[in-house]
C-alpha cells in the first residue's frame, strides 16, 4: 500500500512538473503581490520591515487559495477522481497524498523565494529564517483546510470567489500565529509558544481535514 501511495505522489508531481506554468503561476502571483506593497505604501524601510511578515503571509495565503482551485478540478474532469474513489485503498490516505504532493509543488517554491522577498522588504536574516519556518509549519495547514473547501466545490461550475470566502475565516489562527512569531523574533522574544501552537494546528488538521475532504469528495461525485 505504501508503494502505491508513493507512486501516486510521484505521478502527481511528475504531472504538474511537466506543465511548468501550472506551478509557476502561484509563485509569480506571490512575488507580484509582495511587490505591490512597497509601491502602494511607499518605500519606507522601517514601515516595510514592520509590515513584512504580514505582507508575506497574506500574499502566500492568496497564492495558496489560487492554487487550490487546481487541486481536484482537473482530476474530476478527467475521471481520475472517480478512480480514486473506487480504489481499494482508504480514501483518507489518498487524499493525504494528494495534499502532500500539492504542498510540495506549490508551497515549497513559495518558501524558497521568501528570503529574496524578505531582503527586498528589509528583513534581517534571522527574521527571514523564522518566517520561513512559520511558513513551513503553517502552509500545510492552509492546504489541509483549503482541501475541504476545494472538495466541496469540485462539482460546481463557476464558483469563482466562493472558495476564498468559504475558507478564509478558518485561516485566521494560522495567520495570527505565523506573523506573530516573526514579530516576536524581531523583538528577540521567545517564539516557542507560537511554534507550539502552529505545530498543534498542523497535527489537528492532519487528523481531521483529510477525512472531511474524503467525505466531501464522495458528496460531490454523488451530485
Amino acid at each position, binding site marked *: 500500500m505504501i508503494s502505491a501511495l508513493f507512486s501516486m505522489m510521484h505521478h502527481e508531481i511528475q504531472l504538474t512538473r511537466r506543465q511548468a506554468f501550472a506551478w509557476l503561476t502561484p509563485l509569480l502571483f506571490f512575488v507580484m503581490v509582495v511587490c505591490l506593497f512597497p509601491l502602494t505604501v511607499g518605500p519606507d524601510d522601517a514601515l516595510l520591515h514592520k509590515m513584512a511578515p504580514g505582507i508575506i503571509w497574506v500574499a502566500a495565503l492568496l497564492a495558496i487559495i489560487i492554487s487550490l482551485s487546481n487541486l481536484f478540478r482537473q482530476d474530476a474532469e478527467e475521471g481520475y477522481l472517480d478512480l480514486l474513489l473506487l480504489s481499494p485503498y482508504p480514501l483518507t490516505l489518498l487524499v493525504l497524498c494528494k495534499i502532500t504532493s500539492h504542498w510540495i509543488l506549490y508551497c515549497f517554491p513559495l518558501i524558497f523565494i521568501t528570503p529574496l522577498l524578505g531582503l527586498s522588504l528589509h528583513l534581517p536574516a534571522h527574521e527571514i529564517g523564522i518566517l520561513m519556518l512559520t511558513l513551513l509549519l503553517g502552509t500545510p495547514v492552509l492546504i489541509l483546510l483549503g482541501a475541504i473547501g476545494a472538495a466541496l*466545490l469540485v462539482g460546481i461550475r463557476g464558483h469563482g470567489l*466562493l472558495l476564498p*470566502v468559504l475558507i478564509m*475565516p478558518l485561516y*485566521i489562527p494560522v495567520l495570527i500565529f505565523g506573523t506573530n512569531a516573526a514579530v516576536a523574533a524581531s523583538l528577540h522574544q521567545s517564539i516557542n509558544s507560537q511554534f507550539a501552537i502552529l505545530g498543534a494546528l498542523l497535527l489537528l488538521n492532519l487528523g481531521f481535514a483529510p477525512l472531511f475532504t474524503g467525505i466531501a469528495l464522495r458528496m460531490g461525485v*454523488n451530485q
Partner: protein
Amino acid sequence: MLFWFNQKFLSPKAFYATSVLLLPWLVGAFTVCFSYGLIAGLFIAPADYQQGDGFRIMYVHVPSALTAMMIYFVMAFSGILTLVFRLKIAAICMTCSARIGAWFTFLALVTGSIWGKPMWGTWWIWDARLTSVLILFFLYLGFIALQSVIVNPETRDRAGALIAIVGVINLPIIHYSVIWWNTLHQGPSITRFAAPAIAPEMLYPLLAMIAAFFLFYGVILILRMQNQILLREIKKT
C-alpha cells in the same frame, strides 16, 4: 428503535404537526419575556453610573450576540445529525437557522458599533470580541453562499453540514487566537468594562431579554422550517 423514533417524532410530517401545536406557546412566552425585558430594561433599571442611559443598548446587544453564537452551535449539532443519521428535519433546521443566525450576528455588530461610538469614541475597534463576532458573521455568510450554489437538495444539506462542523471545530481556535492577538497588540485597554457585579435590577431584564431572543429564534425557526417542509413537499410531487 431510532428508526421508529424518527418516524414517530422527527419525520418532517410529524414535526410539522407538533410545531403547529408548539408555536402559540412559544409566541406567548416570547411576548411575556420581551415585554418585561423591554419595559424593565428601558424604564425601570437605573442608569449606569459611568455610561448613563447609553448602557441600555446592552439589552439588545448582549442577547443578539449570545443568540448568534448559540445558533451556530445549533447548526453544527444539526449538521452532525444530518451527516451521521441523515435526519431530514435536522438538515431543514440547519438551513433555516443560517440566515437567522447571520441576521443576529449583523445586529450584534451594528448595536456594538452604535454602543462603541459614545463609549469608546469610535465606531469600530479591533477588540477581541468584536473581531470574533465579525469572523462568525463571515462563517455564516460562507455557509449561506455555499448552500446557495448547490442545486441538488441532498448534496446541499450534506455539504452545508460538513462546513458547519468544520466551522464549529475551528470556532474556538479562532476565538482564542483572536483574544491572544488582541492582548499582544493592545494590552489592557478601556474596552473591558469593569462590571464584576451587575446590579440585580439591571440583570433580570437582561436575562429576560436573552430568553426573549432565544424564544424569538425558536418562533422564526419554526415558521421557516414549516415553509421549508412545504416547499420540499411541493417539489417532490
